[in-house]
């Protein structure tokens, strides 16, 4: 009886510790994830939000006056259909380079190639689609 009781308590303590450890690892992973995106998020907030919006849904303060609406980066379906190479090309050389609107400007002379790669990955992170979602 007593041995069984000790075994039960032991199992409970063990599972509780594992749960706590698991939660801690989860929280740390999330914090690492946030830190990983922080610098790129700042770039997005500086250059992209003016048109693509605070919610990344294409409804920025400039969008209302536009004849063509900016891309909704929160739309997994629409964004999932665009290959990584096209996202990088659109940011670097502008909308016209991928047969889209001139209202999407070329950022290749403002941002480095690495920053543009990071932004493309961040956009995948936002839409939870494409290459980033498969990781």
């Amino acid at each position, binding site marked *: 009886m007593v041995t069984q009781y000790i075994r039960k308590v032991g199992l409970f303590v063990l599972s509780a510790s594992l749960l706590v450890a698991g939660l801690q690892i989860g929280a740390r992973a999330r914090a690492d994830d946030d830190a990983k995106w922080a610098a790129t998020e700042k770039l997005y907030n500086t250059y992209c939000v*003016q048109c693509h919006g605070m919610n990344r849904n294409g409804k920025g303060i*400039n969008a209302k006056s536009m004849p063509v609406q900016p891309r909704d980066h929160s739309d997994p379906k629409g964004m999932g259909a665009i290959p990584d190479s096209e996202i990088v090309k659109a940011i670097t050389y502008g909308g016209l380079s991928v047969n889209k609107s*001139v209202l999407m400007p070329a950022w290749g002379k*403002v941002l480095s190639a690495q920053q543009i790669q990071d932004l493309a990955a961040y956009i995948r992170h936002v839409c939870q689609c494409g290459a980033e979602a498969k990781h």
Partner: protein
Amino acid sequence: MGRIPILLCVAALTAAAPALAGAADGDAILKQQCAPCHALSKPSDLSLERLWKRKGPDLYYAGVKFNQQWLVQWLQNPARIRPAGEFYFKHVKMTPGGDIVDIAALPRHPRLSKADAEAAAAALMALKGPDAMVSKGAFKKQAVPALIGAMFFEKLRGCAACHMDKPNSGGLSGPELYDAGKRLQPDYIYAYIKAPQRFDPHIWMPQLDLSETDLQRLANYLAARQDAAAK
């Protein structure tokens, strides 16, 4: 005996006072009233973080940017230039229909008296920034039909995504440009369109791959935008 020199001193001070009051000290106004929000000399830190922290546009090259007459008027009656303020991201309100400018969050610019505005404008015109920031004579004045200019600004080169070339027509994250010619020197307009990051290394305006013809066309179109109520 002792009273005469004191009286003379008082008389001399009284006589000098109106002259001192009339000649406002422009440099002192800049230091006291402008420096808390604007850089009056080139900052050593021009990082993206600093761009986020600054409260107003840099003025260390105001003398090659603004028209003095406009400065004198504007400092007495400061009206909106940037619909979303500086920096736009800090004045955005999210609504179900999309982002809008949070007008209540926009800070008001101080207003100066006529004498102070004239003195401050003169002091600002002396701030030329580093050499070669703006090449004198790069702007070539030419007649660009307004319709052609507008077509390039609004449709072909995408400037209207962020700027208004007519009241209530265009984007909100960049300065209004329908009175750009009144506000800005033509050589500055040309230089800024050509390479905005020469002035603000991380500014949220793209550097487009524009031909010389395009640059001159757009700069001329904007330099001709003189009237705030232009249609």
